[in-house]
């Protein structure tokens, strides 16, 4: 087959100057013929379609006629009929052009007609970035979308934030895969994705009450009609390593400093002899390891006369750089897309995705997590004692233990099976009228296996001197089942009047329901095991069934929506879109459940106007504006009503008895939060389409924020099983500008150069918190200490850091005496301690002297992609940067005997030694109070991916070199090598400035985040 086309390509299809011509239409990428392409003689109705082999024949053609060759998904080409030329028409796949079809809510739209702020990531970007999770494909690629990872551990979650954050509750955007709600993107194989569309402004309004955090629409790859089977296999493998080892004290330095601090505290020094201690153990080096990563995926695509199909399988396996296979992630996916024209104009689509993920986890980003311990374990201790057992960690607080033992004893596995199906029927009643019914459903089982073996980390035989100690093994096995379905009914009408008035109208009805059940058991009296796979419930002596909230159903949310969209365009110059959606949500009480969400947008393509039609500068120029109301109902079920979901447990007759109690206080008045979103934008193409430039300004004001509000405890919020009530109690404003710039050109005929750059600014300010105190609190610093080191407060960015401001170090007793007393912080200051700024001017330093110390929201984010293709060699590099965020160093335990960061060598040792780092001492002091000392600049620039590849293909005849090894008639093979997370420029002292818990209030406290690994990989891609 391939050879045949090769011949067709090489041997020009000859035509006489007679009235009949013939030719072939080929796909530029694959060189495969394109069946069903339209060939039309310009200005006439004469035309034909190509046959299965891409051939076409046309009669009555004159020299000088122009053929318009088009096919969906390809750039339309015009060819002048000239008998001297061949009619091999090679169509380019339609990528990154303005004729691109953009997937919008409930339908598609040509990109040039889009009037909202919409960004698209295509499959080629995903291929280059090679993300392990879909979210990474968006990181730095799209202006206004900020991605942070909760953890660099395999399978760790990522947070997507579109144009800032607005609530201390749920900030996640709505994510739809082929129209189906999928919130957990870890189940999707990134290479199955055809495109990702991000709706950032009021154009998301068609999703009404679910749209205020933005909407992400993902489409998976589909086949094309009347194409032969196309087979593709991708494989890569590589290894990962840590990007950073934090500088901490070595054994000699540690002992010296510890002695100094004990002496200063009036205690006997613990290390009288230091001479032989040397470097000691570097616990981080013990904990970090190189870890493998592999991926395989196979896909098959094609189509018959009336149908298309696309089938894919993938297997992904990643071990952790901390913990190896104890922190691993395995994913198997299978996917099938099938579309068929059942009758004339009557289409059925059926998509099905199955994913199985297995994730093993270690304690991370918490006090006492592996990395936390690796930083805080003294270098004087060895990993193993003389008997070969794990060294015990005594005298290091309740949390600091031997991280290697912790790894050994971590036995956790979460297995998730997800089935997603989409079934759609579409009937074109008339060419201009069609109806569509789609049924989408997900079923997910999350099965947890958590084993807690006997563990004795501290003093031998003492169970309880460490919080992780456990005398008897315990096991819990929760099973949570999530189900949801969506039914959409759409009527689409499209008509052109008088050649210039184009009207499109969509009317729709949608219902959505999601509900979840939880079951499970916990067990005791099991034998210890080495692998979580070996646990057997049958071995347990006590098995206790577990149900959530007495009953097993723990959520049920429903949404009923009607929506209409009206699009009007005049003369391909002026565009108007108006949307109205009405939602009824079960999350709100009867009086508040219904919301109306109108949005409108306009576009004006100036380049179509006469005054610009001859412009040398602008190939395309469009102004656009949108404004509208969006909503948010993302709160738990039944919060408007008061239920007996609290915990009422007591002991009678020496037996635990279970009763009932009210849960979190209800708020019958809670209603959807409302956002007013404005977007103003310009899009242009310049310099013969070599440059694409987009500029947007946005302002989102979210009112009636759904907040879990800090509430007086007289209402019982601190009772067991209770919690903060939800209320519409605030407003937040996010505004900024976004610039997207792309440059594409070919040099010397063979060097393709591409550059994409995006830049966004974000200004987040809380404008109202209506809970009496004007702020919400969150986060935690160290152990004990002030409540709420992170705040959401009027006039500040959400989740800003709130603590004491230091003003150098007290050098002398006189300086201490001259300053307000710091006793309220825990102890009176002495020389060598921090001098805290007396903000309120009273006679003491206390919690009232806390101020703004920074915030975790970056002011500027940007991304840069560069690609170079020269002959068979391709190169790409991709970087992103974030500036102006702060991060809190919170991974230092700072106990008398824990290890310290290396910068502690600069501690204060006497008058004039330093004005930045306080003395070391075991005596009571207030230097660990949350202050700006622990707040660092979290700005960074990360080179995320560098990749170089070489392609052997029939086209360049290089494939023959590989023939001896490749029996199959491969069409092309590409080999590549890449480095992921190549390097990061930052001043931040911790492991990784890109991670965050994702909490809007209380995020940005680094307890030893599991860093994102650097990955070296090689791979190949083969196409048949």
């Amino acid at each position, binding site marked *: 087959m391939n050879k045949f086309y090769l011949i067709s390509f090489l041997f020009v299809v000859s035509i006489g100057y007679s009235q009949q011509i013939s030719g072939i239409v080929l796909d530029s990428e694959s060189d495969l013929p394109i069946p069903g392409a339209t060939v039309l003689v310009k200005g006439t109705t004469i035309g034909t379609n190509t046959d299965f082999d891409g051939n076409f024949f046309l009669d009555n053609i004159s020299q000088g006629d122009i053929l318009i060759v088009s096919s969906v998904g390809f750039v339309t080409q015009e060819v002048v009929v000239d008998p001297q030329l061949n009619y091999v028409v090679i169509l380019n796949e339609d990528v990154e052009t303005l004729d691109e079809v953009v997937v919008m809510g409930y339908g598609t739209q040509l990109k040039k007609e889009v009037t909202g702020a919409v960004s698209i990531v295509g499959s080629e970007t995903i291929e280059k970035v090679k993300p392990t999770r879909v979210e990474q494909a968006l990181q730095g690629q799209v202006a206004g979308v900020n991605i942070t990872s909760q953890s660099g551990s395999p399978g760790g979650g990522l947070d997507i934030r579109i144009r800032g954050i607005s609530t201390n509750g749920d900030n996640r955007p709505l994510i739809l895969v082929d129209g189906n709600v999928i919130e957990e993107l870890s189940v999707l194989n990134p290479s199955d994705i055809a495109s990702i569309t991000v709706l950032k402004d009021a154009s998301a309004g068609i999703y009404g009450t679910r749209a205020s955090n933005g909407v992400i629409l993902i489409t998976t790859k589909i086949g094309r009609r009347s194409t032969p089977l196309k087979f593709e296999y991708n494989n890569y493998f590589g290894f990962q390593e840590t990007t950073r080892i934090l500088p901490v004290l070595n054994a000699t330095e540690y002992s010296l400093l510890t002695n100094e601090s004990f002496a200063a505290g009036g205690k006997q020094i613990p290390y009288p002899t230091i001479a032989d201690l040397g470097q000691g153990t570097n616990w981080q080096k013990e904990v970090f390891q190189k870890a493998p990563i592999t991926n395989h995926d196979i896909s098959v695509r094609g189509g018959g006369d009336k149908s298309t199909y696309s089938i894919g399988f993938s297997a992904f396996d990643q071990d952790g750089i901390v913990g190896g296979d104890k922190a691993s992630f395995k994913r198997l996916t299978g996917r099938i897309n099938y579309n068929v024209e059942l009758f004339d104009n009557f289409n059925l689509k059926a998509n099905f995705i199955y994913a199985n993920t297995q994730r093993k986890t270690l304690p991370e980003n918490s006090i006492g997590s592996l990395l936390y311990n690796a930083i805080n374990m003294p270098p004087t201790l060895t990993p193993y004692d003389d008997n070969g057992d794990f060294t015990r960690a005594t005298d290091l607080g309740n949390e600091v233990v031997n991280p290697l033992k912790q790894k050994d004893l971590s036995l956790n596995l979460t297995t998730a099976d997800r089935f997603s199906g989409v079934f759609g029927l579409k009937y074109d009643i008339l060419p201009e009228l069609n109806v569509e019914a789609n049924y989408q459903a997900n079923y997910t089982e999350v099965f947890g296996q958590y084993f807690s073996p006997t563990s004795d980390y501290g003093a031998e035989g003492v169970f309880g001197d460490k919080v992780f100690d456990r005398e008897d093994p315990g096991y819990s096995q929760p099973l949570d089942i999530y189900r949801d379905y969506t039914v959409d*009914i759409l009527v689409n009408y499209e008509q052109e009047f008088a050649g210039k008035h184009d009207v499109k109208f969509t009317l729709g009805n949608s219902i959505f329901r999601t509900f979840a059940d939880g079951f499970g058991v916990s067990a005791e009296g099991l034998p210890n095991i080495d692998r979580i796979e070996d646990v057997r419930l049958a071995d347990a002596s006590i098995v206790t069934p577990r149900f959530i909230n007495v009953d097993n159903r723990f959520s049920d949310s429903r949404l009923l929506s009607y929506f209409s969209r009206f699009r009007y365009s005049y003369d391909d110059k002026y565009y108007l879109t108006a949307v109205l959606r009405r939602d009824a949500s079960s999350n709100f009480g009867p009086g508040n459940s219904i919301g109306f969400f109108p949005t409108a947008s306009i576009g004006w393509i100036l380049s179509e106007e006469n005054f610009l039609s001859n412009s040398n500068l602008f190939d395309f120029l469009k102004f656009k504006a949108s404004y509208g109301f969006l909503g948010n109902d993302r709160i738990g079920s039944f919060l408007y009503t008061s239920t007996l979901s609290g915990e*009422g447990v007591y002991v009678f007759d020496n037996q635990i008895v279970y009763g009932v109690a009210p849960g979190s206080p209800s708020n019958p008045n809670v209603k959807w939060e409302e956002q007013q979103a404005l977007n103003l934008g310009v899009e242009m193409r310049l310099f013969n389409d070599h440059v694409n430039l987009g500029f947007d300004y946005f302002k989102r004001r979210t009112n009636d924020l759904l907040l879990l509000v800090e509430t007086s405890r007289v209402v019982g919020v601190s009772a067991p099983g209770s919690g903060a009530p939800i209320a519409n109690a605030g407003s937040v404003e996010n505004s900024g500008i976004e610039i997207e710039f792309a440059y594409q050109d070919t040099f010397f005929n063979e060097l393709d150069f591409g550059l994409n750059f995006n830049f966004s600014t974000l200004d987040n300010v809380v404008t109202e918190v209506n809970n009496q105190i004007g702020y919400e609190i969150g986060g935690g610093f160290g152990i004990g200490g002030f409540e709420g080191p992170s705040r959401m407060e009027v006039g500040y960015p959400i989740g800003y850091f709130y603590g004491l401001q230091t003003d150098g170090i007290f050098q002398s007793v006189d300086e201490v005496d001259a300053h307000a007393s710091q006793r309220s912080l825990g102890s009176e200051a002495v020389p060598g301690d921090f001098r805290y700024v007396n903000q309120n001017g009273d006679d003491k330093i206390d919690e009232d002297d806390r101020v703004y110390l920074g915030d975790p929201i970056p002011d500027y984010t940007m991304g840069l992609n560069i690609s170079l293709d020269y002959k068979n060699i391709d190169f790409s590099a991709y970087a992103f940067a974030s500036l102006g965020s702060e991060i809190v160093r919170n991974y230092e335990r700072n106990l008398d005997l824990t290890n310290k960061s290396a910068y502690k060598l600069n501690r204060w040792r006497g008058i004039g030694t330093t004005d930045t780092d306080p003395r070391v001492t075991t005596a009571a002091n207030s230097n660990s109070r949350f202050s700006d000392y622990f707040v660092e600049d979290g700005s960074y620039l990360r080179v995320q991916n560098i990749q170089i590849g070489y392609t052997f293909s029939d086209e360049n005849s290089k494939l023959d070199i590989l023939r001896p090894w490749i029996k199959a008639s491969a069409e092309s093979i590409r080999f590549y090598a890449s480095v992921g997370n190549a390097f990061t420029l930052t001043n931040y002292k911790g492991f990784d400035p890109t991670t965050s818990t994702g909490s809007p209030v209380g995020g940005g406290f680094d307890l030893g985040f599991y860093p994102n690994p650097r990955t070296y990989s090689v791979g190949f891609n083969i196409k048949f």
Partner: protein
Amino acid sequence: MKKFTKTFIITFLISFFVVACSDDFVRVTSNNIDTENYFNSEEEFESALIGAYDLLQSTFYNVLVGEIASDNTLAGGENASDGSAIQQIDDMIHTPVNVQLRDIWGWMFAGINRANFILEFQEKVDFENKPNIIAQAKFLRAYYYFELVKWFGPVPLVVDQRINFGDQFGLDRTPVADIYSQIEKDLAEAIQDLPEQQLMIGKVTKGAAQGLLGKVYLYNDKFAESADILDQLISSNNYDLVPLFADLFENDTNFEFLTSSNDDENDVHLDSDQIHIEDHILVTGKDVLYTSESPVEGLSSGSTYYAIVVDYNTIKLANSKLEAESNISIDLTGFSESAHSLYAQFENSIESVFEVQYSDQEGGSFDCFQCSEGNIAVGFNGIRKYIGTPFGPRFESGYSFNVPTQEAYDAYNAADLRRDISILNIEKWVAEWAELGVSITYGEGNEHTGFFNRKYISRRRDLNIPDPNLTNPNNYRAIRFADVLLMAAEAHNRKTNPDDVKALEYMNRVRTRAFGNTDYNTVATGNTLTQLIWNERRLELMGEGHRFFDLVRTGQAANYIDGFETGKHELFPIPGVEIELTGNIWEQNPGY
């Protein structure tokens, strides 16, 4: 025809969904029961009552922090900043920002809300046992309000209705006198309807309500009323002092043993007629309850036997105290394969007037102290890094908070049997065991005094999983008969027409037990007796969380507590944020 079919299908599909989807689709009810539609049966009242009892377990901070606030103990902990809010209270430098104070505030109000929840719906259905349930709810409300008023003075008083979200604004602080009136009313009504004995151990009895009412009167200097109600309690003869003070707190004989001997895994094993207990010290003649599903021949399950101590880790059993003292033991040979357990009834004993029940059967978590069914104060009080070779006798490791001072230890007469039961002298303990060949080590925490609050420190136990520090089952003896006797003594001594004869009788009952003889009984009267009773309260109730409030109510706090400022520290500050969250209309307590 075909076209018609398709059109029909489509039309049908659309009409089906559009019609089906009225707004009724989103009217869905929770599987959890609606709070407003509850209380339809006795079972539902009982279930809600369990919810109201639950917060009693959260009073562990009231006891722990209350004791630390007094002159009995120091804060301790790992280092000077461990539990800094508690350290501040110890040093009397606490401020309106204090985690523990806000917990106490919130948990007591949570308890009140749950009691009021029941009382809000008390008229809904009728059944025979309802007065008993309502009376328990009233007692609990009174108990929680009494705690609040002791700690914070005037607080909002809300009766027979919950404070719902939204109701918190505009609540005024009710004068202390009005709160006490309500407490007295609740308790008086509870006394009417409560039985002298409940079917289940741990439930509030009439005696508990009388004891609490007597205490409330005492706090209000209503001595005659206090004496009267406490006399009723005492004369009911439902309560008595446990003969040995040593039998009050140390639940150290609760163990299981398996018949398979020579099993090193078990602390206890049976060998012929002897029971080996690794770390056990019992007094010969001590009563133990025996239970087993398949009892050893010669024993019957559920019966009480008496220990004969062979050596420090071996006992035999006898049928009576007398036989035990005469070394006449039961032959235990021929036992069957089964688990057996022996325990002494230290908890819910005859002396227990009201006892907060705890259990070690459910794990605890640092994330939710109020969710634990265990007594968290016990783990906090525990000896730091306590460990022994070949085993650590009796105790388990803890966090070394709430450490008694040398002065508190010295306050006891050396002949006072209570001293070594109330306060563990760790050096002495280590020396005693060293003589028996057991070497014990321990860690010194912050403000190490060498003493621990022995009544409430963690014991060796296997069930308190997963964290032995959060799941200790030690019940808190909230109102002991000895406390009642001393309160009655004080009331009789201080009432307008004092009855020092009765006061002395009550006082000397306590003292006689304390010394094991009558040699130390007192004959003083009047103010001297008052002082002696107050001192006796300290010694008898050491470590039980009463001292600070006794010193405050008797106006002596400034004389004893370092840093105590009269006019300020009698009350703790209302958590500042709570003042703001209720609308910022309350005045802070004076001095803060």
